[in-house]
C-alpha cells in the first residue's frame, strides 16, 4: 500500500504531463506492441543455471496473490486461486499445451476420434494411468466425471462450457464415447479445463464433500495440507503419468495477497517465485539483477464495458470517437510499463485472431475523434461516470488518463472507485455507465467460443455480458462459428466476427496484458500454459 500510494502520486504526475509530451516509462524501448523488452523473458528460462538437464528433487515456495479455498473443480469459489491449484491436482481427458501454445494434447486420454458430424467423440484412456492413490482410471470414472460436468446442478461454476453435452457411454474398460446434442467444435477445449476434470467415482460417491478436502486426481501433485489463509502444501504424486515428472518433491503456495509483502518475501529468499508482479515494480525488479521477470501471453485484457442503456453509449459514433481519442502507446508506456500489447480485437487475445495487418487496431487520432463526435447526436458532449476497482494503482492511473483523454472530445467523465464486490454487483445489475468490471478480466478458454457466446448469444441469459448490447447480424455469425465442425472454416469465420466487433466496438479493449511472475535465477522450467496456469510438473531447481 505504501509504494502503491507513492506510485499513484508519481503516475498522476505522469498522466498530467503525458497530455503534452513525455513518456514516463523510463528506459523501455517499448514499440507499443509485443512484450519483448530487455530484461523480460516470455517463457521459461533455458540459459544460465537452467542450461543443463532437469534435476529431480527439492522444493519450492511460491508467493501467490490469490488464496486457494477449495478443491472441488465444479464449485470454484475463489477464481484463479482455486483454479490454478486444482490444475496441479487433476487432469481432464485432454489439456492445452503446458508450454503456452493453444494446441490440445492428451492427458487422461491419449487418443481420440471425432465423428464426421462432430457430434460424437471416442476417447481412449491412457494405458496404465492411475490416480494418485494408485487406483487405475477406468471408463466408469470418466463417465461419472463427465456426467457431473454436464449436470448444471453440480457444475455450478461454469455450466456454459457443458452446453451441448448429451451423454457418455462406456464402450469398454478403456474407451468411452461422448455424444453431443449438436456439434460443439470447442468441445475439447471445454473439457480441458477444470469442470471437466476426472475424479474417481468410488471415492467421490463414498466420501461426498469430504473427498474434496483431501482430493485424489491424476495431476502431478497431491494436497498435503491446506492451512486456510496461510499456505497450501503440495507433494509429488508418485503415480503421475508423465515419466520422471514432476521434478519437485514439494511445492508450497504461500498466500500473500499484498503485493509488497509478496515481493518482499521473494527478495528475501523466503519464496523463490511470486506471481502477480505489479506493473509499477517490473522495472525495479528486472534491474535488480537477482531475479528473472517472466511474462506469459494469456487471454487477459483491460475490458472497459459500456452500458448500452445509456443513450450516448448506444451511439456508434460516440463509441468510435472514444476509441480514436486513446493513445494506447502512451498508456502502455506510462501505466503498464511497456508490458502490454495494443489490441486489434475487442475481446482478449484468442485463437483464430487475425493479425493487425488484417484487422487494424483503432489508431490514435484526435481529429478523427472530434469528427466522429461532431457527427453523433451528442456533438456537445455529455457527462458520464466510470466505475473502476479500488486498490489498484494502475486502474486509478488509467481512469485519470481516460478522464483527461475524453475531456478533449467533450465527454465529462466522473470517476467512481468501488470495491470489487460492489463493482461487480452493480455491473451485473446494469447499474453503471462505463465500468472496468474486473480487476483481472480473463477468458477461461483459449478459443473465442466462450466469450463470443457470452456477449453475442442472447440465449446465454447474460444480456450481452451485462452491456445490454445486441446485434442480430453478429449473433448470427457467432452461432455459425460456434457450431461449425470445420476447423478451417472456423479459422476464416472468426476474423470476420473480430472485425465486426471491432467496428461496432460495443465496449473497449484498452490493452492486452500478460501475466507476470518473478523468480530466482535457479528456478527453471517455469512453464505457463495459454490460460496462465503454472505447470509446476516441469519446474526444477538448479543446484548452486
Amino acid at each position: 500500500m505504501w509504494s502503491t500510494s507513492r506510485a499513484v502520486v508519481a503516475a498522476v504526475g505522469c498522466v498530467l504531463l503525458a497530455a503534452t509530451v513525455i513518456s514516463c516509462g523510463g528506459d523501455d524501448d517499448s514499440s507499443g506492441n509485443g512484450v519483448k523488452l530487455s530484461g523480460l523473458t516470455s517463457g521459461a528460462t533455458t540459459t544460465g543455471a537452467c542450461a543443463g538437464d532437469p534435476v529431480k528433487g527439492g522444493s519450492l515456495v511460491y508467493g501467490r496473490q490469490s488464496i486457494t479455498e477449495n478443491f472441488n473443480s465444479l464449485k470454484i469459489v475463489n477464481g484463479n486461486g482455486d483454479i490454478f491449484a486444482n490444475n496441479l491436482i487433476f487432469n481432464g481427458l485432454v489439456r492445452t499445451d503446458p508450454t503456452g501454445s493453444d494446441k490440445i494434447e492428451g492427458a487422461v486420454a491419449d487418443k481420440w476420434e471425432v465423428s464426421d458430424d462432430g457430434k460424437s467423440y471416442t476417447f481412449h484412456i491412457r494405458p496404465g494411468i492411475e490416480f494418485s492413490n494408485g487406483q487405475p482410471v477406468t471408463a466408469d470414472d470418466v463417465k461419472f466425471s463427465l456426467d457431473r460436468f454436464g449436470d448444471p446442478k453440480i457444475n455450478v461454476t461454469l455450466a456454459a462450457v457443458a452446453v451441448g453435452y448429451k451423454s457418455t457411454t462406456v464402450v469398454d474398460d478403456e474407451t468411452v464415447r461422448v455424444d453431443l446434442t449438436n456439434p460443439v467444435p470447442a468441445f475439447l477445449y471445454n473439457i480441458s479445463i477444470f469442470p471437466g476434470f476426472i475424479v474417481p467415482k468410488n471415492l467421490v460417491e463414498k466420501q461426498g464433500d469430504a473427498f474434496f478436502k483431501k482430493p485424489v486426481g491424476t495431476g502431478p501433485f497431491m494436497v498435503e495440507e491446506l492451512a486456510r489463509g496461510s499456505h497450501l502444501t503440495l507433494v509429488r504424486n508418485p503415480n503421475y503419468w508423465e515419466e520422471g515428472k514432476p521434478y519437485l518433491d514439494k511445492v508450497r503456495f504461500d498466500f500473500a495477497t499484498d503485493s509488497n509483502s509478496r515481493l518482499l518475501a521473494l527478495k528475501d529468499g523466503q519464496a523463490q517465485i511470486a506471481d502477480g508482479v505489479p506493473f509499477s515494480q517490473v522495472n525495479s525488479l528486472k534491474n535488480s539483477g537477482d531475479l528473472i521477470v517472466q511474462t506469459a501471453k494469456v487471454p487477459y485484457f483491460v475490458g472497459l464495458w459500456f452500458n448500452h442503456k445509456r443513450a450516448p453509449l448506444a451511439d456508434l459514433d460516440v463509441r468510435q470517437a472514444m476509441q480514436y481519442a486513446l493513445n494506447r502507446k502512451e498508456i502502455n508506456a506510462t501505466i503498464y510499463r511497456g508490458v502490454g500489447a495494443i489490441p486489434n480485437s475487442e475481446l482478449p487475445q484468442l485463437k483464430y485472431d487475425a493479425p493487425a495487418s488484417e484487422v487494424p487496431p483503432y489508431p490514435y487520432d484526435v481529429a478523427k475523434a472530434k469528427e466522429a463526435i461532431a457527427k453523433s447526436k451528442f456533438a456537445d458532449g455529455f457527462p458520464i461516470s466510470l466505475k473502476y476497482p479500488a486498490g489498484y494503482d494502475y486502474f486509478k492511473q488509467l481512469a485519470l488518463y481516460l478522464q483527461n483523454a475524453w475531456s478533449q472530445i467533450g465527454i465529462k467523465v466522473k470517476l467512481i472507485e468501488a470495491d470489487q464486490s460492489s463493482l461487480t454487483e452493480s455491473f451485473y445489475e446494469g447499474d453503471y455507465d462505463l465500468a472496468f468490471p474486473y480487476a483481472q478480466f480473463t477468458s477461461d478458454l483459449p478459443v473465442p467460443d466462450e466469450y463470443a457466446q457470452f456477449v453475442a448469444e442472447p440465449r446465454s441469459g447474460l444480456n450481452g455480458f451485462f452491456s445490454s448490447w445486441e446485434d442480430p447480424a453478429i449473433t448470427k455469425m457467432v452461432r455459425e462459428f460456434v457450431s461449425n465442425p470445420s476447423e478451417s472454416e472456423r479459422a476464416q469465420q472468426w476474423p470476420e466476427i473480430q472485425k465486426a466487433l471491432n467496428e461496432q466496438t460495443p465496449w473497449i479493449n484498452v490493452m492486452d496484458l500478460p501475466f507476470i511472475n518473478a523468480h530466482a535465477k535457479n528456478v527453471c522450467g517455469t512453464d505457463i500454459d495459454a490460460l496462465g496456469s503454472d505447470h509446476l510438473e516441469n519446474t526444477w531447481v538448479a543446484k548452486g
Partner: protein
Amino acid sequence: MLRYVLNRVALGLVVLIGLAVATFLIIHLVPGDPVRQALGGRASPDQIEQLRDQLGLTDPLPTQFWAYFSNSATGQFGDSFVQNSPVGELVGQRIAPSALLIGYGLLVSLLIGVPLAILGALRPNGVVDHSVRLVATLSFAMPLFWLGLVLALIFGLELDIFPVSGYESGLGGILKTLTLPAVTLGLALTVIVVRTLRSSLLEVLQSDYIDAARARGLSERRIVAKHAMRNAVMPTITILSINIGFLIGGTVVLEGVFQIPGLGSLLVESVERRDYEVVQTLVLLAGATVVVVNIGADILQAAIDPRVRLAGR
C-alpha cells in the same frame, strides 16, 4: 459491587445487540452477495437464483435477521457458503495468531512504555523525557502498515534477523514470526502508555502522601514502585482497555502486511467475498472482546480503588 458489575454487564449486552443489528444491516445492504461473488458473471441467472434460494438469501431481511440473531444467541454461527465449513471451525483455526499478536503487542508496549514513563516522570522536561515523547509520538503517528513495512525492510530484508512475513506456531515459531508485527503494534501503542502513565505519575509524585513517604526516608524506588504506581496506573488501565479496539483494528492491517493467517485477514477476505456468516460472527466477536475487556477494566479499577465502586452510592 455486585450491582455495579451487573449494571456494566447489562450495558454491554445492549451494546452487543446494537452491534449485531448494525453489522447485519451494513453487510446485507452493501451491494453484492456471496452467491454472485462466488459464481461471477459466467453463471446463468437461473443457477444464481437456485443457489440463493438454497441459502435463504431470497427470504425477507427481517426473516434472515431473526434466523441469524436467534442462532447467534444460542452459539450457532452457521456455515460459510464460500468456504464450505462451519464458521465456528473457521474462527477456531485462525483465532490463535490474532490473540497472540494482540497479547504480544500489549506486552511490548508495556515493556517499553512503563520504564520510559517512569524515567520521564522522575526527570520531567529533561532531555530523556522530551526525546522519549518525541519518538513515541512519531511511532504513533506513522500508519501501521507503513511502520510494519519499514520494520520488515530493516529487520527482515537488510539485517535478516526475522522473516519478512508468514506465521509459524509453537513458542519458537511465534517468537520468530510474530515479533516484528508485535513490535509494530506495540510501538504504536507505546505513546499511549508513556503519556498517560507519565502524566499521572507526575501528578501523584507531587501529592502530599508521597512527600510524607519521602519524609519517612523511603527510597525513591520504593516510593515509585509501591506508593505512586498503584495510584498512577489506574488511568493507564482505562486508556489501554479503551484501546483494545485499536489493537483489534491493528491486527486487521498487520495481518495483511505480514501475511499472518489470523482473524483480521479472514475478516478482510470475507468482506470481499460477502461471506455474511463469517463477517457477522467476526464483528460480533470483536465487539464482545471490547465489551468484556472494558467491563474487566472497570471491575479491576473497582477492586483496586474503592472510590470507584462507591461512587454510585
